[in-house]
């Protein structure tokens, strides 16, 4: 991969996510920001491996069923649920041993908003439109997550993986999340041609 090409994808991702997080920060009690973006290449398993599985993870994800299918994933640490719920809704959801139905509803909507912002940026740059599938959520270890994600994308397919680290803060509590776009190489190359780095 050409480092300049990665810069183009990184810039698009940062721009789309920063606008979205600014809006979420305005309408929610939390402060949301992009810590950094990196680009790599690999399969959906390689993407999920980037998460630090100290605990299980919760993933919100959807695919965009195009001729070259794209996918987007947002990963959370379930231990951060009190902070995430406070940042997004203003209410601290009680922490149980596992993700509750209320947690799932909240994470799915949050993922829906953030992941669409990321993918809207790429698709608008390409002047393409693809209606995303309904977002889904799964909680578990890496094997469980990659198993579920393998149902919406070919687990053997190579992608350009754009990963953004997000931080959210409300009062003294801070949580992290990773947001990933899985772009087929063809689409990544089209984006590089459309928007050369300044």
């Amino acid at each position, binding site marked *: 991969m050409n480092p300049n090409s990665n810069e183009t994808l990184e810039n698009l991702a940062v721009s789309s996510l920063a606008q979205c997080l600014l809006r979420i920060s305005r*309408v929610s009690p939390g402060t949301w920001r992009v810590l950094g973006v990196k680009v790599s290449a690999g399969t959906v398993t390689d993407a999920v491996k980037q998460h630090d599985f100290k605990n299980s993870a919760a993933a919100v994800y959807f695919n965009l069923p195009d001729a070259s299918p794209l996918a987007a994933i947002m990963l959370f640490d379930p231990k951060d649920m009190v902070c995430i719920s406070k940042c997004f809704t203003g209410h601290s959801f009680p922490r149980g041993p596992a993700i509750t139905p209320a947690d799932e509803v909240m994470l799915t*909507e949050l993922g829906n908003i953030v992941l669409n912002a990321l993918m*809207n940026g790429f698709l608008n740059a390409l002047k393409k439109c693809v*209606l995303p*599938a309904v977002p889904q959520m799964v909680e578990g270890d890496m094997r469980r997550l990659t198993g579920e994600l393998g149902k919406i994308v070919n687990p053997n397919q190579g992608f350009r993986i754009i990963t953004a680290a997000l931080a959210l803060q409300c009062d003294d509590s801070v949580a992290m999340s990773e947001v990933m776009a899985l772009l087929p190489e063809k689409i990544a190359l089209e984006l590089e041609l459309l928007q050369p780095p300044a």
Partner: protein
Amino acid sequence: MLVVDDSDLIMEMTKTFLTAMGHEVIGEAYNGNDAVKIFTEKRPDLVLLDLVMPGKNGMQVLQEIKAIDPAVNVIMITAVQQDPISRELLSKGAAAILNKPFIYDELEAVLKQMH
């Protein structure tokens, strides 16, 4: 008013906002198929309609309910902000598009445009 969204969070928030504004919510649907069914039965004058849902999506529901009642006002609620999709929604009769996440004042401003 009919509210259609597959997210409990958005459904509850939207209903709370509408009630506080003095509007009556006469129906709620969590998927596109139920939305068309409830619309046919209750004939609300205004529909708040999610775009991405299980079953029929919001674009399909919009077309069906506009065919039933061309005068109905439909406000689309979505996180999908892709220019061609927004244009298509407006060309198919959506009165406005409200982007997620939205706040009370934004919903109120869009509703005021309808009157």
